[in-house]
């Protein structure tokens, strides 16, 4: 009895185990089929181009050529200034504006739809609009300056420093709304109870920011800064469409300089070298971001 009972039990166990292993086998087969389209795209359009890119950028001559090009140094400085000034200014403004949007009346919802427009509509159009506004002779900005103050406005896009300032302005205009919404979501995720407790304890606006908002938002703010650095290194449009890298190739960033070599002069290897030389700048941020995003996955 005991023996047959045991064998019956083990038979059931065996069947169950077989069934579950068959089930997990088909699950695994299905999973493989379902991931396959992604893997194909990844192999054809990420692995192959990235590998090819490193191959194209493996010629030491192109680095020597790059380092001997005075434009390259100007471009490096521009890229760093762009990252430090544009990213931080943009996120600081986003922090302020998100606070305004979080605290205000319902009509502000409408405002936030209008506010998001720069991000939603194509930058080709808006950047070209900026470009014409900043035109020294015919542009809106200098016209208004003349009509209002009888001041001759500067040639915004002809002076390299002003032109690069305009690039930063355009970049901020375009991407400020997105980061404001991200920080707004972060602010709204902070419990209202904390603010009430703070106000009962007599905290003013600044103190409630310092002791409630900032501790709840700091991690997101830093994540946003890193992510924005990574995205901003790749901002091609703000430079290319506003100044084209000019005047005198003095407003390039690495993203546009690479394209200039490769497609302006047909020197693909030097173009690729320009991109690869930027990687040491980028990799630490990517590494931090991956660690942060993966830990958020868990």
């Amino acid at each position: 009895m005991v023996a047959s009972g045991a064998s019956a039990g083990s038979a059931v166990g065996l069947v169950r185990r077989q069934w579950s292993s068959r089930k997990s086998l088909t699950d695994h087969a299905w999973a493989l089929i379902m991931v396959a389209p992604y893997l194909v795209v990844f192999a054809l359009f990420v692995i192959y181009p990235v590998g090819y890119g490193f191959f194209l950028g493996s010629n030491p001559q192109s680095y020597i050529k790059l380092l001997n090009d005075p434009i390259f140094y100007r471009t490096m400085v521009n890229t760093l200034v762009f990252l430090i000034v544009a990213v931080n200014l943009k996120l600081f403004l986003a922090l302020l504006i998100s606070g305004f949007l979080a605290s205000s009346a319902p009509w502000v919802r409408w405002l936030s739809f209008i506010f998001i427009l720069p991000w939603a509509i194509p930058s080709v159009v808006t950047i070209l609009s900026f470009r014409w506004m900043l035109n020294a002779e015919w542009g809106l900005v200098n016209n208004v300056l003349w009509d209002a103050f009888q001041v001759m406005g500067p040639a915004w896009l002809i002076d390299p420093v002003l032109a690069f300032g305009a690039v930063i302005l355009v970049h901020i205009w375009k991407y400020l709304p997105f980061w404001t919404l991200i920080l707004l979501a972060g602010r709204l995720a902070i419990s209202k109870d904390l603010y009430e407790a703070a106000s009962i304890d007599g905290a003013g606006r600044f103190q409630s920011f310092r002791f409630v908002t900032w501790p709840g938002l700091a991690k997101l703010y830093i994540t946003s800064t890193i992510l924005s650095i990574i995205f901003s290194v790749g901002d091609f449009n703000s430079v290319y469409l506003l100044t084209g890298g000019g005047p005198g190739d003095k407003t390039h960033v690495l993203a546009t300089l690479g394209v200039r070599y490769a497609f302006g002069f047909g020197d693909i290897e030097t173009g690729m070298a320009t991109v690869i030389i930027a990687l040491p700048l980028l990799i630490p941020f990517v590494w931090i971001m991956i660690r942060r995003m993966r830990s958020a996955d868990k």
Partner: protein
Amino acid sequence: MTRKPPSVALTNLVIAFVILLWTLIPIYHMVVMALSPTGGTPAGQLIPSDPTLDNFALTLTEEHFLVQHFWQHLYNSAFVALSVAFLTLFISTLASFAISRLKFSLGGAVSGTALLTYLIPASFLAIPMYVTMTNYDLVETRLSLIMVMVTFATPYAIWVFVQHADSIPRELDEAARIDGASPLQLYRLVFLPLMTPAIVAIGTYALLLAWNEYLYAFLLVSQEMNMTLPVSIGYFLLSDEAPWNLLMAVGILYSIPPAIFYYAVRGYMSSGLTAGAVKA
């Protein structure tokens, strides 16, 4: 909630006004220019002295050589954007289902590669991507642009979908399985319906990403009948006396679809896209 004193309300109004001004000036400037006569000197005016819809009429009837293929280019942009949205959703919902619900053994590696791809600035791949498309003999086809944009949209899509999928209770899958559902049925009948908000958000993200893309569009497709609208707008700048008023009219027509689309789905966008970011 205590009522705010009037001084706070006034400050809020001033801040709101400044934000509106900052946001709308370049857009308003587009409109003013588009409403000014085509050939006239495009002086920067605050109010168009002689407003006309000629530029829009010229564009819609294709009666200027720079806009002679306007409808074709609009069609190309729509075709590329819709294809990218569809393919991105197809590829990334399947992959995220496999990773999150079927517990695909290499799921961690797959989502890791997706994350890494997401963090490569798209413009850094412009040169090798161009060479790759030449090698695949896809340059000058809309397919090349579609595949590039799918490549850049998919990683973020997978990341967002996996996060949403992980929040769906597993009991739903188990109940369906007891009723004899296959993985494919689970995907169709349980997974996709529950993922709808995220699918709308990511679909919009992919659509706008592709519709607004300039760099890859002009690198990969410059052939007259295949190019998208932003590329044809860029070509205005090559013309000796670029008619900026006409350019702005085309630009406004090109900007309206994404603005309307974003407005229609804005409720999904903030919950769908920012949720993942806030967690990180």
